[in-house]
């Protein structure tokens, strides 16, 4: 089965992926900050055990593990692939993960809430992501009673998630708007509609390679469908703005853009050392060039997949050992060179 970042998908020139996250807590345990170590162990064991039914009740296969005992490299690599959150990695208590083989579904155990059900699809297809997350939620609810109140809905550790407990988010590629210096203003505008725009890896992280996340801020008072529809409307607006800006670039600075794209390709093709920040910037340029048809490579070449693979954690994960920064930069340059498509 294809992993989500290998799928060919709708609107993928701007929208890289669609993601749904549901926060749930079991009725029988106190919330995360009041959970003692023994209860944490129990929680992780119990949910992992219960998760075995996913194999028979959905069309996917799953693996589970205790996250807190994994090596730092494994954990970093999973954060870079958005399988788990940085918060789950930082926790010292027992934490767990149930992950489908195609990495489209992950259930984090004992994160900020007892369960964080995540479902992701490639491109703009959040309806599909919700359907899957909802199914997993239903199956889990058959096995455990959730903390739920008639008034406030699904009860969460933090009142900013209460209600639906749902965060719907799009990962978007906005190089032209970034180049035009319009991201900050856009973030302010979206804020007025209760929608957040932030860096790739969620809370307070920097943005790499012009990739951002757009997600709903409010979780109470609207139904899941209403939240998704509203977010869709906004993302379509952002998509239009980005495309318009790309057209503007084509018309007004074609030569400059073309030169930039080919230069980036040249550096990626011949560099002997490249840091991950540099690589991200160069790959973003190349992705923009491919999306704008300034440069032609083999069909369906997936730059975003390469972007994830060359992150420090994933590189070391593939080597199966920790290496120094300089060694990593050399290995990264080598890795990219071997995988860079030929210009046609």
């Amino acid at each position, binding site marked *: 089965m294809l992993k989500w970042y290998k799928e060919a998908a709708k609107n993928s020139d701007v929208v890289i992926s669609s993601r749904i996250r549901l926060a749930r*807590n079991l*009725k029988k345990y*106190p*919330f*995360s*900050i*009041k959970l003692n170590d023994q209860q944490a162990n129990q929680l992780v064991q119990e949910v992992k055990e219960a998760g075995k039914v996913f194999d028979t009740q959905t069309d996917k296969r799953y693996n589970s593990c205790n996250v807190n005992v994994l090596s730092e490299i494994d954990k970093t690599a999973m954060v870079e692939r958005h399988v788990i959150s940085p918060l789950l990695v930082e926790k010292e208590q027992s934490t767990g993960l149930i992950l489908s083989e195609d990495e489209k579904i992950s259930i984090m155990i004992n994160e*900020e809430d007892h369960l964080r059900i995540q479902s992701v699809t490639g491109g703009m297809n959040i309806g599909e992501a919700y359907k899957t997350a*909802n199914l997993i*939620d*239903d199956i889990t*609810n*058959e096995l455990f*009673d*959730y*903390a*739920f*109140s*008639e*008034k*406030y*809905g*699904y*009860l*969460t*550790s*933090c*009142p*900013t998630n*209460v*209600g*639906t407990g*749902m965060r719907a988010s799009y990962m978007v590629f906005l190089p032209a708007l970034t180049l035009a210096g319009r*991201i*900050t203003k856009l*973030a*302010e505008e979206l*804020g007025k509609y*209760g929608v*957040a*725009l*932030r*860096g790739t890896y*969620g*809370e*307070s*992280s*920097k*943005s790499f390679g012009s990739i951002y996340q757009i997600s709903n*801020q*409010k*979780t*109470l*008072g*609207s*139904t*899941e469908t209403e939240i998704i529809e509203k977010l869709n409307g906004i993302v379509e607006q952002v998509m239009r703005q980005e495309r318009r800006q790309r057209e503007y670039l084509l018309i007004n600075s074609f030569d400059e853009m073309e030169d930039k794209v080919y230069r980036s390709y040249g550096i990626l093709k011949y560099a002997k050392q490249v840091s991950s920040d540099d690589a991200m910037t160069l790959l973003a340029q190349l992705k923009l060039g491919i999306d704008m048809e300034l440069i032609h490579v083999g069909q369906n070449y997936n730059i975003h997949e390469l972007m994830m693979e060359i992150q420090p954690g994933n590189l070391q994960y593939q080597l199966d050992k920790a290496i120094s920064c300089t060694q990593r930069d050399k290995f990264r340059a080598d890795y990219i060179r071997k995988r860079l498509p030929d210009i046609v």
Partner: protein
Amino acid sequence: MLCDKCKKNEARVYYTEIINGEKTEQHLCEECATEYTSFQMGTPIMNQELTLGSLLSTILGNFGGTAQGKGSVEKELHCDKCGMTYSEFMKVGRFGCERCYESFQSILDNSIKSIQGADTHTGKKPKNFQTKTEKLVKELSEIDKLTIQLQDAVEKEEFEEAVRLRDRIRELKKEEIGNA
């Protein structure tokens, strides 16, 4: 234009304050604005979630931690299930258990709307979840249910239906007495 306060940095905030009808206007730099006004300047894009968190504390803080918003420290609100206190919640911004939502409801009710824009859930419910009304209806006896329907019919002046219901209730009551 330079900042009116420090006279060093470029003024970026135009601050108008009206206290008791008296208007003062100032041109301030971001630093002075943060220090001397209620304005919080920050990088707008990357820390929205954090801002929401601190906003939460600020909003909740305005409503005070004691039962009626006044009184002594000994009466501090707390959750009797997990022991979470109001000040602890203010520090961490997280609840300790599901009961906390009831224990701190007096504060939440006033503030959750400012955070979420709404105060009542309308989305998905767990499959077997019963609302309070559903539970009450379920616990009602057949006679109670019919009596409610009868009152309803009388109010709507549907007298034929009312007669039918009245007779049915009489029958049931007779049966009950018979059974006893």
